[in-house]
């Protein structure tokens, strides 16, 4: 066992050494754009390739004049930088925060934030501030684990009462040594079927499902005005970028150019998905 972990570390080391070589490869326009992609990260990325970011990746590759090659991973997208990009198995990761220090991020391709998802008719009135959660009588909230949405629940004093409910959304799978996350579509279906009074989610996590819901739902953007009780500001609005390896300046420049060129098509993809976008961060 100890040997395996050492071997893993050695592999990472090798990947770092090999990086310049890969960078020069990716600079060739004839080479396909190798996109790190998860098979199980709906609505962003799916095995069928019909995720929002699968579509944006196609648009960007086209604008670069390059073929696209999805390098598929069975695990969730949270592993893509560590297990894909950093190991040189692929060259770009769609959907990173623009300030993600592990990667070199492109200019933002869009900006959006956390929303309340409620029934259009008869849902709780939560306003557009996180404090709406403190005031409401509503008790049941669907959120994803380890997100600012979960922190909002904590600060509003609604967390402990929702822990069991949250775990029921993943069928009580043991979280102890594995990444376990609520399916994005589940956040919405819980509001539709009335088991949750509201969902709190990053807008593109849920936009597709809100749009397709059998009961009319609304998304309300939450103001970027949230801090923990110790004063630490927790952002609720995020710029989304494409990430490349830190030494891959050249590829980032190509991507930035392509993003500018493909902007109308990217905006259309976001609009089709129903993602409420915010003005770019000044």
């Amino acid at each position, binding site marked *: *066992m*100890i040997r395996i972990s050492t071997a893993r570390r050695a592999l990472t080391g090798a990947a770092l050494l090999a990086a310049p070589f890969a960078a020069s490869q990716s600079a060739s326009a004839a080479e396909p754009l190798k996109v790190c992609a998860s098979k199980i990260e709906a609505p962003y990325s799916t095995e069928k390739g019909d995720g929002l970011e699968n579509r944006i990746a196609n648009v960007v590759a086209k604008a670069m004049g390059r073929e696209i090659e999805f390098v598929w991973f069975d695990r969730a997208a949270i592993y893509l930088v560590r297990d894909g990009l950093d190991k040189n198995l692929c060259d770009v990761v769609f959907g990173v925060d623009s300030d993600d220090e592990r990667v070199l991020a492109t200019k933002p391709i869009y900006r959006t934030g956390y929303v309340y998802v409620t029934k259009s008719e008869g849902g709780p009135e939560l306003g557009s501030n996180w404090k709406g959660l403190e005031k409401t009588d509503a008790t049941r909230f669907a959120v994803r684990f380890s*997100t*600012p949405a979960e922190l909002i629940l904590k600060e509003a*004093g609604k967390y402990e009462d929702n822990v069991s409910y949250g775990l029921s959304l993943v069928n009580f799978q*043991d979280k*102890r040594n594995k*990444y376990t996350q609520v399916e994005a579509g589940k956040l919405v279906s819980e509001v539709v079927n009335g088991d949750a009074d509201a969902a709190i989610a990053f807008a593109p996590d849920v936009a597709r499902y809100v749009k397709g819901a059998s009961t009319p739902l609304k998304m309300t953007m939450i103001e970027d005005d949230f801090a923990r009780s110790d004063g630490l500001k927790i952002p609720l609005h995020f710029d989304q970028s494409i990430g490349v390896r830190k030494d891959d300046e050249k590829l980032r420049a190509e991507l930035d150019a392509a993003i500018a060129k493909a902007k109308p098509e990217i905006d259309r993809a976001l609009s089709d998905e129903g993602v409420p976008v915010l003005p770019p961060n000044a």
Partner: protein
Amino acid sequence: MTKLRTSVSAFTLTAAAAIGVAGSILPAFANDKLVELSNSEENWPMTGKTYKAQNYSKATQINAENVKGLRPAWAFSTGVLHGHEGTPLVIGDKMYVHGAFPNPTFALDLNEPGKILWQHKPKQAPTARAVACCDVVNRGLAYWPGDGKTGARILKTQLDGHIVALDADTGAEVWKMENSDIKVGSTLTIAPYVIKDTVLVGSSGAELGVRGYVTAYDVKTGAQKWRAYATGPDDEVKLAKDFNSKNPHYGQFGLGTNKTWEGDAWKIGGGTNWGWYAYDPDTNLFYYGSGNPAPWNETMRPGDNKWTMTIWGRDIDTGEAKFGYQKTPHDEWDYAGVNVMMLSEQKDKTGKLRKLLTHPDRNGIVYTLDREDGTLISADKLDDTVNWVKQVDLKTGVPVRDPEFATRMDHKATEICPSAMGYHNQGHDSYDPEKQRFYMGINHICMDWEPFMLPYRAGQFFVGATLWMYPGPKGDRQNYEGLGQIKSYDAINNKYDWEKMERFSVWGGTLATAGNIVFYGTLDGFIKARDTRTGDLLWKYRLPSGVIGHPMTYTHKGVQYVAIYYGVGGWPGVGLVFDLNDPTAGLGAVGAFKNLANYTQMGGGVQVFSLNGKNPYDDVNVGEWTGKQGG
């Protein structure tokens, strides 16, 4: 109370008080009868045999000189494949047998062994299976002998969170209560425990944010008498007015909430109890341990996290705690503190005869306390390879940690001993009151713990750890063997008389007898007998499947039998029973026990032995079909 405890009048007073509570005419009768039954070698009416939980029998028909003549007498399959923990009960002519999920119960006729007198097969929601963390085990049954007006009962738990009372003669359900709600991640695997007219039951599911509790039910009606939580305000934790008055440095009042937890985190703080109980009629206290705090990731619950990981002494009538000693404040390793509590009376080093409680904890320390007030008497390493703690300060009760083996972020800890499985887990060990020695089955497993943090979009992140488990320093790390030990322990002189290595963990516990023998089962499917004086291996027998339960013995019609469950599973068996291959799965248990599947496979039942295999069917006419009745 303290002064009166040992006198007869004290017992009468307690009984008189109980009359008022229970509204019954002879409330002490059932308890007296249970004590009487437990003192006879013809019965094994509770896990641990007597309230002292010593797993000890005075029977000597089978002894160190003749044990090599032990042969199979009869066997019974439960029809359940998963892990079988605990031990059967025997009362008079009946053996009561339990099984893993879906939790069947059988009453067997000891005059025609294996013949089923009644069976209880509950229907349970299949979701219960998904909620259970570590195989779908159950640890056994409890027996209430009746009180002259109400008939005898068998008490059982179901994985889906119910406690059920059955008529001991017919198996009919008398009452059924929901103790734990699987909708909130709480299950039941513990054996219920009968004291007087009360049945105790714990809770499982700490890793799922359950706030642990122990509950007392009226054995006749199922009505709840009281419930005591492991965390929270003092009235809900049920602290007596003199709680820890003899040892105020253990902590006393107001510690179960935000003084040792961040904010309201105690509400989801774990501290479930799914291990074993013991009881002392003189102190009127019962003893048990609360388990690990939740969530698993320690960075999310700064503080001591009281009263998880605590040895409790609680009054059976009120539920109030007289003492509580927290062994592992702010647990970082998953050293759930629910293990067996064995009671003994021994002279301490100054020669003073004391009432003791001895508890081999998962954290690798075996604790001995004065069970009248919780005073710590000894705290010894279960093996000299324990390293997360340098020593336990007996004056303060505080473990002195070695930061090298902590599990904090940005630190990969290697060779932490013991592993998360503990050097001792749920096994029910034994104590020989003549020799004043404990016989303990040990896990010899260590681990690497590599924490990691992965960020993701929109401020999401994932904090986790990868665990690798492997044999301790005395085992064979090339071949993943040498994962267990068995040893004889002297709690007063802090020494081990002997210790022997085993290929795999001795997971289920031990049975000691006055015949100078300690019996135990092994994961790879043996039942073994050793000489309690020397540790020499005297006898063994190959069972159909590996063992995670503890042996018991009973004498029926003059013949002494030894019985043991086989049926591999539980945490060490998760890789085998669920066919897992990732070595880090099951928190690393899959890797540690990867060789187990080469030695045994699933299958549950009871195997019974006697000298030369003597059994009722030696008379071939017993159990024969003798033709149509009345024909």
